[in-house]
């Protein structure tokens, strides 16, 4: 798409994103449920760290209980802010509605991404402050050096972008497989384990950490999370670059999948 066409289409995508954010805001019970879930997970792991650290064990250099709780708050906010776009795409493919959506004057995948990003923005705006409040309450205050958290905000936004692109790609797999949920489960759990959702990668054995570094998940989860351990501009820049590279790769993969899916739809019908 040329820059001119993209410029003309931008207000449409923005309108879609805004409508999606409004829709998500209207479903306050769901939003509240996510906030409570975030609080519960932070509470459980504050207990885990209480129990572990009570034995005087050393965990991550420079990180105590408060930093570990803040780490979890940041990683959970990144993960919980991403909507399940793959389910919406799967529903469109299954029902055949996608055929009617393809004739609209916006790209189908572009529209889904805009809607997902709109909802993600709203969730970040709600879960971010809520997670910070939970973390302050459970950790008893800010991390020892809270300046790093300033980097966590833009990194969290970039991480969410990568996650949205990935979940949209999972949704497009509905053109080839009946149920996309199992693919999502695996992607999600890989993000949990290789990304270090609950435990920082510093606690992992060397071999697993080495494997994880070849995947996009550490940049997506551990990267923003480790900003809770202190002021590290170089690490923040490194994570930002990794996220941009992985996002570009994910976008390219999504475009390729989208072309293949459209071809399949043309051949088999909607």
């Amino acid at each position: 798409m040329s820059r001119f066409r993209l410029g003309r289409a931008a207000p449409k995508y923005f309108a879609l994103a805004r409508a999606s954010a409004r829709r998500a805001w209207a479903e306050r019970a769901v939003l509240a449920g996510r906030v409570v879930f975030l609080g519960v997970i932070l509470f459980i792991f504050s207990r885990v760290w209480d129990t572990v650290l009570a034995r005087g064990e050393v965990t991550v250099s420079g990180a105590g209980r408060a930093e570990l709780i803040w780490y979890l708050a940041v990683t959970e906010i990144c993960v919980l802010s991403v909507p399940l776009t793959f389910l919406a795409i799967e529903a469109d493919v299954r029902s055949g509605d996608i055929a009617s959506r393809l004739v609209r004057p916006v790209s189908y995948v572009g529209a889904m991404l805009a809607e997902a990003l709109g909802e993600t923005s709203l969730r970040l705006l709600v879960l971010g402050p809520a997670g910070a409040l939970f973390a302050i309450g459970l950790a008893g205050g800010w991390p020892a050096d809270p300046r790093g958290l300033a980097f966590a905000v833009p990194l969290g936004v970039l991480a969410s972008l990568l996650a949205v692109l990935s979940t949209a790609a999972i949704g497009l797999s509905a053109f080839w497989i009946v149920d996309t949920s199992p693919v999502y489960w695996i992607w999600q759990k890989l993000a949990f384990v290789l990304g270090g959702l609950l435990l920082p990668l510093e606690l992992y054995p060397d071999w697993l950490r080495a494997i994880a570094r070849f995947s996009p998940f550490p940049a997506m989860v551990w990267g923003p999370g480790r900003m809770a351990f202190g002021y590290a501009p170089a690490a923040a820049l490194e994570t930002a670059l990794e996220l941009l590279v992985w996002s570009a790769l994910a976008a390219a993969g999504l475009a390729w999948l989208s072309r293949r899916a459209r071809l399949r739809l043309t051949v088999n019908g909607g």
Partner: protein
Amino acid sequence: MTRFSGTLRFARALVAMNLRGSLALRGAFLLQAAFMVLNNLAFFSIWWLLFERFPEIGGWRLHDVLTLFGVVATGYGCSVVFAGGVGHLARAISEGDLDSALVQPKPVLLHVVAARTNASGWGDIATGVGMLWIAGALAPVQLGFTALAVASSGCVFTASGVIVQSLAFWVDGMETLARQIWEFTLTFSLYPRPLFSGELSFLLYTIVPAGFVGFLPAELVRAPSALLAAAALGSAIGWTLLALAVFRFGLRRYASGNRIGART
């Protein structure tokens, strides 16, 4: 007695029909089950990583968490396979979708909960049984206690789901909250008991009965005794009766959706 055996036959027929339905799409069934196994193993690996670094958490070791996970996964799997409709109960109530079940001669609740199944639950069962086997809980001398623990966990989980979902009889828009409370029950039941003490214990044996879904049955497998077996059996019966009573009481307030539909 004849009525009870008739209901039992009906339940068995529903389960068999659901199983046949799941197996009709064999590829999707196997994919869902296999991916659920991988999903569970990935989740459990977080515990493995934690215990690699810290061998003991509140007196619990990896073996204990393996047992807990095995019991809960198997119980949860049985619940979603054999009573997969529980998760949709609140919506069915609020949308007046119980009409077709009300005109049937068999119990309404059985119709609604056993009419659906979740193929991924077989993956949970496979994971749970595998973990219990590794934990040594399937040894012949212990098999009876383990079976009781799993049955108790599954019964309480199903019953607690029926209770929270039945609140839709009294409160509108309960679907999300009901699902959330139910999910919290599962979430809490997968963590070692020593993490939750004091006032939280009360919560975990009442509103969010993770204590009866995870801690108590797992304790029965870890240290089998007649007292724990009686407690597990009692909790399963108690929660089931409570669920039946709540649903029955709520059903009196049920308003039809006036929908035209048929059940085959």
